């Protein structure tokens, strides 16, 4: 089944047939977490770096922000049977989109999102396995729960961020 993650949403699955997808990642971040042993995976589509930018919104929808959304993605993966020390985290997006405020991306939201993810991962004690970030274009991000394969697509180009692990015992 295909599970679509909208803007400021998160999905976690342990269904081997599931594919989680998010579209149109500009300055937003698409963050995946995957445990190759228990084959639990999830994805977050966060828009802005920190919940303190809008505390009410962060309470109402923590998935909107990187620093409040990622811990919830982590929690949800652990609840579904993932182990923190096995989690493989990847990120895509964080582009410098012209629509964010003039030609030179005045607010640098994409860049700030990436810094905040790094800070959050560092505090959680998790390393980033792979990333496809920056540039000035939108990306689509997918993760296959059965294999753990993470792919980004831009137009007709695709990049494998994390290769499929077919050798993992069922």
């Amino acid at each position, binding site marked *: 089944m295909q599970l679509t993650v909208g803007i400021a949403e998160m999905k976690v699955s342990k269904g081997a047939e599931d594919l989680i997808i998010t579209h149109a990642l500009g300055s937003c971040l698409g963050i995946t977490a995957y445990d190759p042993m228990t084959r639990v995976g999830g994805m977050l589509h966060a828009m802005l770096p920190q919940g303190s930018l809008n505390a009410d919104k962060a309470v109402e929808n923590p998935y909107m922000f990187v620093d409040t959304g990622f811990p919830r993605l982590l929690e949800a993966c652990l609840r579904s049977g993932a182990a923190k020390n096995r989690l493989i985290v990847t990120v895509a997006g964080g582009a410098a989109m012209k629509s964010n405020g003039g030609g030179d991306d005045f607010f640098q939201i994409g860049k700030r999102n990436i810094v905040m993810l790094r800070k959050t991962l560092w505090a959680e*004690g998790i390393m980033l396995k792979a990333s496809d970030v920056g540039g000035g274009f939108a990306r689509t991000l997918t993760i296959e729960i059965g294999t753990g394969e993470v792919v980004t697509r831009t137009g007709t180009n695709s990049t494998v961020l994390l290769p499929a692990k077919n050798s993992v015992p069922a």
Partner: protein
Amino acid sequence: MSLNILVVDDSRMMRSVLIRTLQISGLPVGEVHEATNGQEGLDQLSKHWIDLALVDINMPVMDGETMIDHMRANPLTKETPVVVISTESSPERVEMLKKKSSGFVHKPFTPEVVKETIERITGVNHESGV
């Protein structure tokens, strides 16, 4: 088998950052020893078996470059891999430090870069173990 690692930096903060990086890297880390300058680093090398040294350059008492020169002149530590971790940016200096060491990490660094550099030098990684 695990890697015994020596961390040499005059900043307590940077030693903590490097040790935390080692802890979360998933690498098989054994004993971690600390030194606050090149001389202390050489003392630690004479007392413990060290598989890898992470060495800052700009330090009081004895700088990292002098420490590496001493290591290379000693048959017991001649082959010990060294990763230089420094703010040095001029290509000429970086090239020279690379020649003297096994790897160079520029400050500021990400934990991932430190991990990848250690994996490349030691042939050890998270997935395969030693």
